């Protein structure tokens, strides 16, 4: 049995309505719940992070005027619940990313790079808001995963006082897997 990779037809051009989204603010939304201590401890436990800033109130009071969340949890606070009452479709974070997968007919995607800039600390009880901005879409590229396009999306996070908490910039590769034919 031999597996043959069949050539993939080249990708269609990026639709005009997708190009028009570049630089536009999309999906301004508020996180589904206030920042909470339990999630902070769960996250620290998942990576065995014993930083006393997150476990010892005296240290938190001394350094940060009270408890804060680990900076790298920035995106956690706006990720939607997997289900909530009245919703008929599963909500997904980074919706601009999933829009591109559908609009460009690229069913699979991975995040290839990610830049996080951390500003004002996130505090217990904060209501984090986010907004998404599509920055770029590449020409068609071929990688070991398949043929597709890279795109970059910025997610800006603000608290209830409109103070910037951070910016995450995601570069993703959306692709189609090569089709396989099984021959003798």
């Amino acid at each position: 049995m031999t597996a043959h990779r069949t050539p993939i037809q080249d990708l269609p051009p990026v639709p005009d309505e997708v190009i028009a989204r570049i630089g536009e603010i999309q999906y301004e939304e508020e996180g589904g719940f206030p920042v909470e201590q339990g999630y902070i401890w769960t996250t620290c436990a998942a990576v065995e992070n014993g930083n006393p800033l997150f476990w010892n109130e005296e240290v938190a009071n001394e350094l940060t005027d009270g408890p804060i969340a680990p900076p790298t949890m920035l995106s956690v606070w706006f990720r939607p619940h997997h289900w909530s009452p009245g919703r008929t479709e599963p909500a997904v974070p980074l919706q601009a990313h999933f829009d591109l997968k559908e609009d460009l007919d690229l069913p699979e995607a991975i995040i290839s790079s990610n830049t996080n800039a951390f500003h004002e600390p996130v505090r217990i009880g904060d209501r984090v808001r986010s907004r998404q901005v599509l920055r770029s879409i590449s020409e068609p590229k071929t990688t070991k995963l398949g043929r597709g396009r890279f795109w970059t999306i910025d997610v800006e996070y603000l608290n209830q006082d409109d103070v910037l908490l951070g910016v995450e910039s995601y570069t993703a590769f959306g692709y189609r897997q090569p089709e396989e034919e099984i021959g003798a």
Partner: protein
Amino acid sequence: MTGHRETVRLLFGDVSVGDVLPELSHRVTATTVVLGALASRDWRPMHHDRDFAIHRNGTKDIFLNTPNQAAWFERYVTDWTGPSGRLGRMIFRMNTSVFPNDTMRFTATVTDCSVDEVGCGWVDLNVDLMVDDVTATTCATRVALPVDKNDNPWARRGDAWRP
């Protein structure tokens, strides 16, 4: 290790370009992957459903998600700095995925030390997450350290904080 972290308060003057951080090693299990995904509220099936990961994503197993990797990098860097270290920026580049039964090995080197215009002491690090001597993910990290015992990077606000 926890007791050690509680006492470390690294200062900017303690660090030089070329310094190498102590290595961290951790054996990944399916629980590591699933716990990390759920802790970061990432419900996507490639981080908990092995069949989906193999047959839809074309990977060999479920794999660590990006936000959880970020949490691992943060833990590694702040193990070194202690609680006074304040992360400013992290740039991740994912080369290969990290799967159950892999042993992650974190290593890092100091690439730059500088004090910015507003007096904040910055240390730049190249951090690598290695699996079997292959770099799975790199993370260029910029972390602020106190320039002296009276300085606290966490107290910086507005224009005094330039990550």
